[in-house]
């Protein structure tokens, strides 16, 4: 028996060691640091109480970034979901060369968000980007929109880039889910005279909800933590207009070296994220 005892821990240990490196140490360090007082100038390791957390509560810039991130997530997620669903329906039935198309459509998702952001930044270029050119054709005259600089265009630009990159992800998930829906139920429904909408609402939707929930959870979390695309396209600008939580956190830690404050910040993000995930999971459980 002792042999088994050793074996199963033996094969688990190396993996756990690595995970602890990223999972335990940083967490502890954040916890400790957030109660100290380390900034770019001073290295005060004494206990500073909850001062940083208090500051966090009062930090307008922090809350603004939270608001922006939440709003962006709330807008992008349904769009990606809706478009993904529409595309999934399109590819559900017989399409020649389906495999080829699906493989190509997946490309945006497998490239780096940096490359995606860079590409779109160039596409949105006010003089040499194709987007303005195309808009110009429709408008009938030259268009020189400053997508990544104009305050009313920066977010739409980021939105477009993100939707472009991640809709294929939703598409694939939903295609799989739709393919798994029991055909017999749908046929029975059509014989019963149900409209397309009815069939969707009462048969298809419940069947794909678990997969949709997972996809939304994954995508929602990623949107919440969005960094790469924003960083390449606007770097949080103009000003702090597109500064998401992650961008602000990055600034705090790596530009201003406000170490203790950013530790409190980082912990706050983890807590908020965990809360979001838990409440989402609870919501899903209630649905069942």
């Amino acid at each position, binding site marked *: 028996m002792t042999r*088994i005892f050793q074996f199963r*821990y033996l*094969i*688990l240990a*190396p*993996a756990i060691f*690595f*995970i602890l*490196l*990223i999972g335990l140490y*940083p*967490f502890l*360090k*954040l916890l400790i640091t957030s109660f100290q007082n380390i900034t770019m100038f001073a290295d005060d390791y004494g206990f500073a109480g909850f001062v940083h957390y208090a500051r966090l509560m009062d930090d307008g810039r922090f809350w603004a970034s939270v608001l922006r991130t939440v709003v962006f997530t709330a807008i992008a997620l349904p769009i990606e979901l809706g478009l993904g669903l529409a595309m999934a329906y*399109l590819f559900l*039935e*017989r*399409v020649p*060369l389906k495999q080829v*198309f699906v*493989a*190509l459509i*997946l*490309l*945006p998702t*497998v490239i*780096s*968000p*940096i*490359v995606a952001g*860079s*590409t779109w930044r*160039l596409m949105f270029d006010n003089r*040499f980007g*194709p987007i303005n*050119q195309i808009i110009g054709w429709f408008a009938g005259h030259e268009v020189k929109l400053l997508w990544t600089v104009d305050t009313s265009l920066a977010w739409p630009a980021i939105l477009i880039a993100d939707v472009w990159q991640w809709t294929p992800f939703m598409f*694939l998930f939903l295609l*799989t*889910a739709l393919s798994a829906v029991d055909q017999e139920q749908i046929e029975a429904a059509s014989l019963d005279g149900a409209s397309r909408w009815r069939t969707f609402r009462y048969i298809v939707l419940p069947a794909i909800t678990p*997969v949709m929930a*997972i*996809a939304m*959870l994954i995508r929602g979390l990623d949107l919440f*933590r969005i*960094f*790469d695309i924003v960083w*390449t396209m606007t770097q949080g600008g103009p000003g702090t207009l597109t500064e998401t939580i992650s961008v602000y*956190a*990055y600034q705090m*830690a*790596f530009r201003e070296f406000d*170490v203790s404050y950013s*530790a409190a910040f*980082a*912990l706050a*993000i*983890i807590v908020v*994220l*965990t809360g979001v*995930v838990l409440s989402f999971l609870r919501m899903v459980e209630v649905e069942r």
Partner: protein
Amino acid sequence: MSVVGRKNRTGLRFALALACTLLFLFPIYWIAAISVKTPEEIFAYPLVWLPGSFNFNNYLVLFRDGDAWSVFHSLVTAGTSTVIAMVLGTFAAYSLARYKTGGNHLSLWIISQRMVPQISIAFPVFLLFVSLKLIDTYAGLIILYTAFNLPYVIWMMRGYIQDVPIELEQSAMIDGLSPFQVILKVVFPMVRAGLFATAVFTFIFAWNDFLFALILTRSEVVTYPVQVTGYFGSQSTFWGKIGAMSMLGMLPMFFVVATMQKYIVRGMSMGAVKG
């Protein structure tokens, strides 16, 4: 519906699918075009939609200046960390799947590690790696990517291992294999498909990472995403280099999608089922 009607619908679907695909591919085409355009073509107005010729100068510049090394760095770090994560992760997954080590608590904790926001642990990791002298080294990035991907690998492989009929392992044990051999000679072959699917995603994640690469590298092992952002300056933006570097970074992904498409699709949908 008449046969003609059905054909029309398929034709319509095909047209829509084609339009969809082209729409999604357009930006990729655009950046590819930029990478082979001459500076005149890039900065031409009105826009040059089709490059006049395949001008590989941008690529040559990258190789000449040594920037192309970043692709190599990406390859080394992503590739090595994927292999390590797959091996360690699959064995760990076996422990969880068959021995139920740590019960629900351990599994839950491991899976929750995947949810940790990168930005939160970025700075502590940075400090840790500074003190371990791992900044700007292969080892540093490899260790990081391995650690970051392990939860995902364990989560996925556990599911795949649980699908293997346990009688095969028991039969092998009776036939004389040690537990270690059983994993290697029976379990690994049986979960081959799962291994590929998971490895593909693990590799993609490490390959495309930006934040950690940004923080943990300086000049020696700069990976390609960091390299690309370097071309966006406040003064000048090196379009040609951006294009070429992006393409170099994307090419392996094209290759992966082309060869592993089956596994990618399976991997994404498995994630849904096993989530």
